[in-house]
């Protein structure tokens, strides 16, 4: 509705630079007007009463003829209805803010004392600066390595706390090329005030040029392979290893059978969970013996490792001596007695 109205508090202000801002500003303006009216009425009434009924004035003061409950009922209903209207208006916008469109492209953000570590899908890495194209939805997948941070771009009406231990999402669509403040809004320690940067919104063609220029840091995939060895993943997840663990080749994107006869899609969330919370989805037919890497592996390494695992999925076909996917391997031994699940 407000998008149709298309007004905002300061239409040309630099505070109005994403697809949400016109709607938020419209709501804000409506709130301001409503509050202003209410304050104005109260102010006029108060001043009038104060002057007219000052002690010693000759104004008549007969008792009130109307029952007070009528007033009470009136303003209880009035304020409730008014407030509910604003609630619904706000909730509508909020639900849209929380629902990223399907065509959004992903950017990984790691919050760390005291910097924003940003990675693009092509492996490009930036610190405290985020380059995005205009008129293109961008989905931020964020996690913190230490304390709670908050990714805030006031000009986009964008804010999301970045919490350790769980990946959170936020999205925006910048509408106006320019450079905008990026802050950390949640207090995160000594240099919290300096944990700021900027978001550079570029015209799509400029963005394409920016992408083409400079050296794309393509180390991550190779780095991921090294991490696969360093963290000991290869010790079990390699065919012929003494410990029986599912192979990971061709895993990404497949449906994986898990313990209770269900299937789980091996997307990025699944890969992440399987590393930091391995008991969550144990592949059918395998013992839940994988150690927990929560807190052991840094978020940066985790992203590299996930990239590596995804790249394994791309290699087709898999070597002949290897089962194509863990699902394809029929359990040779009866499944170990699984720990009983939820009561």
């Amino acid at each position, binding site marked *: 509705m407000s998008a149709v109205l298309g007004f905002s508090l300061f239409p040309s202000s630099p505070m109005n630079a994403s697809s949400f801002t016109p709607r938020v500003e419209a709501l804000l303006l409506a709130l301001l007007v409503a509050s202003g009216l209410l304050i104005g009425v109260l102010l006029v009434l108060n001043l009038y009463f104060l002057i007219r009924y000052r002690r010693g004035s000759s104004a008549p003061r007969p008792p009130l003829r109307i029952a007070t409950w009528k007033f009470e009922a009136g303003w209880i209903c009035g304020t409730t209805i008014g407030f509910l209207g604003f609630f619904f208006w706000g909730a509508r916008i909020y639900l849209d803010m929380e629902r990223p469109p399907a065509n959004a492209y992903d950017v990984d953000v790691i919050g760390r004392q005291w910097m924003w570590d940003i990675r693009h899908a092509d492996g490009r890495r930036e610190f405290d600066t985020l380059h995005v194209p205009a008129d293109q939805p961008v989905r931020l997948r964020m996690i913190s390595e230490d304390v709670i941070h908050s990714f805030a771009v006031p000009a986009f009406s964008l804010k999301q706390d970045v919490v350790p231990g769980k990946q959170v999402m936020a999205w925006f669509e910048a509408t106006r090329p320019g450079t905008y403040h990026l802050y950390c809004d949640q207090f995160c320690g000594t240099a919290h005030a300096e944990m700021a940067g900027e978001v550079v919104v570029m015209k799509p063609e400029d963005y394409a040029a920016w992408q083409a220029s400079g050296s794309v840091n393509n180390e991550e995939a190779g780095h991921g392979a090294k991490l696969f060895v360093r963290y000991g993943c290869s010790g079990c997840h390699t065919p012929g290893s003494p410990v029986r663990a599912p192979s990971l080749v061709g895993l990404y994107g497949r449906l994986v059978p898990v313990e209770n006869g269900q299937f789980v899609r091996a997307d990025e969330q699944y890969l992440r969970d399987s590393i930091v919370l391995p*008991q969550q989805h144990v592949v059918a037919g395998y013992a839940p013996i*994988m150690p927990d890497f929560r*807190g052991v592996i840094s978020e940066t390494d985790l992203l590299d490792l996930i990239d590596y695992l995804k790249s394994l999925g791309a290699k087709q076909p898999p070597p002949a001596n290897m089962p194509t996917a863990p699902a394809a391997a029929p359990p040779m031994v009866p499944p170990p007695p699984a*720990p009983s699940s939820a009561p």
Partner: protein
Amino acid sequence: MSRAPSLPSHFSTVEQRSVANHLGLWTFLATEILFFGGLFVCYTVYRIAYPAAFVAGSHHLNFWIGTINTGVLLTSSLFMALADRAVKRDRRTALRWCLLATWLLGAVFLGLKFYEYGEKYHEHLIPGPNFQLNGPWKPQIELFIFLYFTMTGLHAVHMIGGLTALAWLLWQNHRGRLSPEHPAPVEMVGLYWHFVDCVWVFLYPLLYLIIR
């Protein structure tokens, strides 16, 4: 609250003071419910998130000690209730034995509790840098054990407070300060003691009895 048998000037009747005492103590117990309640909320959230870890964690606790301790506490509550009855019938000797029995049973409970803590220490199940455990869900089990120590530890602190109050009651009784006209100290300590008992009644199934 007031130890002096004479009525303070701000109360007009004995009845008024008695109601005030009861209302005050029950209000205090309501705060205790919310104090422990914070922990129960934590427990619920994590139990829903990690059911398997809680089952596994519960298996590290000593079922028999937990069960016997519940019985011990329930019995101590019986003696506390008998003490309340004794003071209202002006039976000072009976009151002394009932209070003593309550105190001893409370001490037995704490003894068993600390023996159990000792077991955890020897099994390296104290949360922190020395926590050792093999198998799946290790961090979440550590979380469970942390909750176990916090909840039972806080309960134990309340027990120690109760034992102190009981010792004070015994001293008051020895000095002849408790009578049918002035039963409030026994009533108040009794309410507290029964309440701490009730907390354990919930801790027992939630910590020890998760599907064995």
